[in-house]
């Protein structure tokens, strides 16, 4: 019997998930069983997947062919470094999310839960298949199945019109994007129905066609990733979905788009042009800034996180843009650096955003409230969840020594090394881009302080919060897994980079090595003199500093402590309503970036008996991009609709004119 290849285990996990999906449908009458047995099993599957993928990262590429699919095109599977990495991301993040789900969904009614379990595992399996596919057909099948299953997850609660609208918008944009991807495959295919990636790798397209392919792929995958201006679905769909699903969509599904861009650009097209990089870089920066600015003004906690996802996707795209640019100029070491940062950030984001969405889910579960303006002070009711979410908050704010910082650090390093580019204008663009990136990262801090501070700190803004309960056992387990991931990824960047080396080797033919191998303690991407960073040492110093000061204070201080009412400059009648609301906290951002928003304000006059203030920020891009498209489509369809006039004479005339025109044409 031949040895079990990693690809077989991965396929095994996929089959296992599919089996769980069907079991979910079958066990509709036993919701407890679904929640507490199937979901933990699914987490185990995910863990096995992650372990397999980790093992397969450095190994040779495995291929397999399934006797399914189109007649001349059986399903081709391939497990190479790139797919292993993303499968690792999937498995690692999904195990936490599935654990959380075991607790989160336990109160759901049976029929809905069975269906949800079915779609959930279909979603997982199709995402894994996306990473594994080695031909265009299987890729598209998996890709669209992923969209479809997540659509049903988004519309789990379909009785709410806004959820239906969100789901519709999501699936529509996903579908249009998928057609774009399909077309890019159409350019690359070898003709005669040969759609395998192997053939595409061999097809040497001319510059024009390669660019068309890249742009189509960027469009198609961008629609899934939420790159400007195709982001419109994201802030709608994420809040609509149940929280574990939002976590999975944001943490994992968006990365499938990143995977797709990388696969097409570096693997299938193989020789990118430099200006692709500029496009990706510019789009990425715009997306990042847009995402974070909008995140800052949100009042719904899940919308806030969704916009933050847009920001992070933007950052990742910036990394891809840099990688392309370096690669096009044959600066392999630098492109490997940029690519490492990109992949690293993708991995980090899966953990951080997964954690935050799950945390938001716990809050939602405990309070039934998504509006931050009605939350507050939950750190007292939900201390454990609050602690774990704090880790995610600090990580996504890009603070050392957690993981978000590590990848942003690498990306900034890549920027700083760019001045060696042999192109003067590009040279100038890069510092500006670095500045914009830094701005986005700093704003992310603002956003996260708002997120955490408004929800968990301060006084509870409504009475019902006092009876909120902490996250349950399964939920804590899931949260803790992701939080640990954030910490570990932040503390041991060098190990991460070592594991990313095969991927960069595979994609850009170079890897960050040598220097990183010298010590697991120091992160030195190029040379120690150029840059170095050691989160572990940093963390230890902070810990020592804290312990030392604690010790000193304890030693010399008498330790007397009194509890009293808050002082607040002596103002006596404080209430929870005097705290900043979510809107209030983002007021400066609204003011500074006013030009980006459409703001609708209702200000009370001084004489109002019951003054009401209402402010709503609107995405101008919606009016700029989508409304004209909708208008155009409506106009066109009303114009075309006039053709269907109802009068048979007119119809006969159409036939007549068609006939005459064709006859004249033949003539």
């Amino acid at each position: 019997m031949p040895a079990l290849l990693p690809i077989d285990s991965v396929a095994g996990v996929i089959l296992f998930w599919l089996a769980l999906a069907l079991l979910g449908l079958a066990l509709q009458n036993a919701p407890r069983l679904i929640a507490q047995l199937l979901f933990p099993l699914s987490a185990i599957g995910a863990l096995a997947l992650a372990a397999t993928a980790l093992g397969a990262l450095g190994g040779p590429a495995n291929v397999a062919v399934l006797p399914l699919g189109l007649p001349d095109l059986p399903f081709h599977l391939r497990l190479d470094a790139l797919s292993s990495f993303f499968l690792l991301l999937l498995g690692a993040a999904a195990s936490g999310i599935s654990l959380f789900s075991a607790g989160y969904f336990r109160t759901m009614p049976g029929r809905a839960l069975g269906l949800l379990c079915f779609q959930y595992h279909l979603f997982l399996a199709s995402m894994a298949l996306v990473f594994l596919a080695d031909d265009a057909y299987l890729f598209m099948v998996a890709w669209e199945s992923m969209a479809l299953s997540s659509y049903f997850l988004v519309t789990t609660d379909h009785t709410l019109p806004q959820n239906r609208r969100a789901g519709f918008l999501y699936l529509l944009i996903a579908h249009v994007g998928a057609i774009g991807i399909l077309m890019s495959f159409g350019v690359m295919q070898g003709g005669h129905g040969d759609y395998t990636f192997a053939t595409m790798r061999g097809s040497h397209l001319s510059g024009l066609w390669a660019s068309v392919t890249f742009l189509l792929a960027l469009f198609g995958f961008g629609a899934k990733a939420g790159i400007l201006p195709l982001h419109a679905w994201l802030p709608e769909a994420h809040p609509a979905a149940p929280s574990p699903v939002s976590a999975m969509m944001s943490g994992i599904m968006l990365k499938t788009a990143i995977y797709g861009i990388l696969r097409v650009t570096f693997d299938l097209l193989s020789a990118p042009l430099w200006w692709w990089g500029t496009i990706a870089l510019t789009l990425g920066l715009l997306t990042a800034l847009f995402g974070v600015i909008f995140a800052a003004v949100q009042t719904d906690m899940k919308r806030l996180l969704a916009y933050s996802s847009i920001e992070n996707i933007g950052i990742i795209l910036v990394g891809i843009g840099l990688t392309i640019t370096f690669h096009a100029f044959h600066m392999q070491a630098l492109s490997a650096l940029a690519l490492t940062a990109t992949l690293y950030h993708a991995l980090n984001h899966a953990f951080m955003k997964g954690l935050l969405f799950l945390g938001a889910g716990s809050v939602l579960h405990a309070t039934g409230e998504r509006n931050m303006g009605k939350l507050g002070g939950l750190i007292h009711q939900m201390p454990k969840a609050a602690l774990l979410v704090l880790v995610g908050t600090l990580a996504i704010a890009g603070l050392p020594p957690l993981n978000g910082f590590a990848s942003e650090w690498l990306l900034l390093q890549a920027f700083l090394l760019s001045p060696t580019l042999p192109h003067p204008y590009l040279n100038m663009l890069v510092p500006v881009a670095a500045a914009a990136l830094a701005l986005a990262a700093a704003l992310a801090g603002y956003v996260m302080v708002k997120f955490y501070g408004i929800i968990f700190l301060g006084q509870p803004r409504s009475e019902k919060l006092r009876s909120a309960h902490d996250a349950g056992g399964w939920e804590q387990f899931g949260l803790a897994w992701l939080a640990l991931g954030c910490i570990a990824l932040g503390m041991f960047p060098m190990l991460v980079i070592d594991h990313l080396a095969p991927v960069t080797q595979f994609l850009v033919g170079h890897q960050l090595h040598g220097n990183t191998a010298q010590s697991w303690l120091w992160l030195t991407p190029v040379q120690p003199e150029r840059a170095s960073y050691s989160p572990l040492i940093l963390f230890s110093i902070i810990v020592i500093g804290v312990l030392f000061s604690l010790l000193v204070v304890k030693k010399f201080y008498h330790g007397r402590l009194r509890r009293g009412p808050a002082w607040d400059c002596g103002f006596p009648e404080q209430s929870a309503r005097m705290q900043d609301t979510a809107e209030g906290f983002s007021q400066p951002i609204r003011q500074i970036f006013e030009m980006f928003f459409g703001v609708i304000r209702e200000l009370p006059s001084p004489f109002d008996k019951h003054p009401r203030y209402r402010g709503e920020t609107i995405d101008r891009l919606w009016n700029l991009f989508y409304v004209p498209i909708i208008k155009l489509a409506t106009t066109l369809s009303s114009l075309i609709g006039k053709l269907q006039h109802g009068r048979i004479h007119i119809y006969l005339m159409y036939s007549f004119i068609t006939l005459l025109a064709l006859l004249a044409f033949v003539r």
Partner: protein
Amino acid sequence: MNLSALLFQLLQDTLVVLAAPLLLGWVNQCRAWLQNRSGAGVLQPYRKLIKLFHKDAVLAHNASPLFRFMPYILFACMWLAAALVPVLATDLPLSPAVDVIALVGIFALARVFISLAAMDIGTAFGTLGARREMLVGFLAEPALLMVFFTASVISHSTSLITIVETLAHTQFVLYPSLAFAAVAFVMVLLAENARIPVDNPSTHLELTMIHEAMILEYSARHLALIEWASALKLLAYITIGIALFLPWGIAAADHWSALPIALVALFVKLTAAGAGLALLETLSAKMRIFRVPEFMGTAFLLAVLGMLTHFLLGS
């Protein structure tokens, strides 16, 4: 990493933590002199710390563990920042752990924590302070980063040690880009250390206060640690400025003999910088809070401009 280097690192750690309030005292004293007051003396900050350490701590009823824990983190962060800047010599074994980007990260970490703690009690002033602090921060942080980057592209490194060694120990070159960076840095310094014209550390007026609003609820030992951390932060910033723009005199890695000179140079530079800061504060007026974003935006743009200048002039 040899033993002497480690010892030196320890020495610097101790030195900064002890000397930080002194610098603060000096700045305040200078300010008093400039305003025709006699002043409380340079040791006043120490007295204040001792006084605070003697007091009973009062905590609000709904203070969470985060609130109590924050001062220690803040203190540790600032201490770390100040300890890793090459002040006297570039041979700091722990300094490579934190390059300039990480340094910015540490400042951000401290800022996030102090803002979170400010929101913890849930008072109007606390959240107000946190909001304003983050507002200043999100503009100051990238500006600071850009200042660092300007220096980094000159020295091809983000490591503070390498930057200092490049600037101080190679052939003397004038870098116009650094001029922009220096102006931006001073603006960031003012904002980040709660100085006039951005903030006024000695007032509790709700229209103006930022930093003070955040720490209103703290008392006794917690407040002491926060004050001390502020002093450390000021020291860290000024020494960073020195390292970037006036690095001459800092001893190179293996030149222990140059240490005395370095010590003297540092003393002179700190004295001058403190006096300069006091002068700057005296000459300018506190600006409205709404003007702060413009001020910070200017700093940010200046820093970016500095970096662009570097490329325009072909380094």
